């Protein structure tokens, strides 16, 4: 059997309790769900967690918003969707679309943004 290819050039990030290795960042417009993970160009792995989700009543049925995890660490944000678009992570929150933007190396801010 061919060994699993693990090289320092691979992008790696954590989600659902383990490390995902990917050769490339996710394709544009990959969306969670139905995808499980998005790998951004820095190698960070994004997913929607389960524990700590919030329930919002907005009409007959409640809405659920799930914790946004980056490398298995909660970002403090809750969303129904995470989308990778034009190299940026955007999330659908209770207050609409928000976009994660790197404003200096290693530091990201979340800003409103319907179109990016």
């Amino acid at each position, binding site marked *: 059997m061919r060994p699993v290819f693990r090289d320092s050039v691979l992008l790696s990030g954590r989600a659902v*309790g*383990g490390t995902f290795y990917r050769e490339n960042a996710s394709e544009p417009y990959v969306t969670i769900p139905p*995808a*499980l993970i998005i790998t951004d160009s820095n190698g960070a792995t994004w997913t929607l967690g*389960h524990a700590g989700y919030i329930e919002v009543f907005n009409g007959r049925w409640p809405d659920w918003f799930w914790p946004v995890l980056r490398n298995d660490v909660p970002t403090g944000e809750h969303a129904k969707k995470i989308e990778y678009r034009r190299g940026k992570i955007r999330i659908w929150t209770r207050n609409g679309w928000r976009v994660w933007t790197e404003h200096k190396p290693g530091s990201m801010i979340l800003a409103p943004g319907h179109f990016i």
Partner: protein
Amino acid sequence: MSLREFTVGTKAATLAGATTLVAIRPAAAVSANIGLLRHWAGQYANVTSANWSINFGTQAATLPTLVSATPAKVNFQDAVSVITGGTAAAAGTCGVNASAEGGGTVTDIWDDVMNSVNGYLRVNTPSEVEVLAAGMASCSRFGFTVAPSSLTLWNFGEAFVEL
């Protein structure tokens, strides 16, 4: 939702050759119904892009042979689940990574497709939660339609609530 919630699954598993990833069978009728909140599957390893058919349904006897997996509490203060780990999808048990499919009739509830690079996550809306009635003779079955060609380093599971 303030009811007791649990996850059952496995990490970095090598698929045992059958297609059932997770099977849960509720306990006897006096026990709790089981509501399935989410299903996921993904592969840690750097993989070539490929699409796999994935589905959810129920299976009547004869049931699959599984690896026992104990449900993990989502909220630490909760008591343990009424579902325990088991290898034969007996009443009140759950298991993962089937080594042999049972010959029982499988009834599909939904079918979908997942990509190996992106993985698969299905989060049910409240009205979509699949409810397994206590005392049912069948088990739930989340898995592939056909076993994928790459069998190593899979992560998969389900989250459920006791209703």
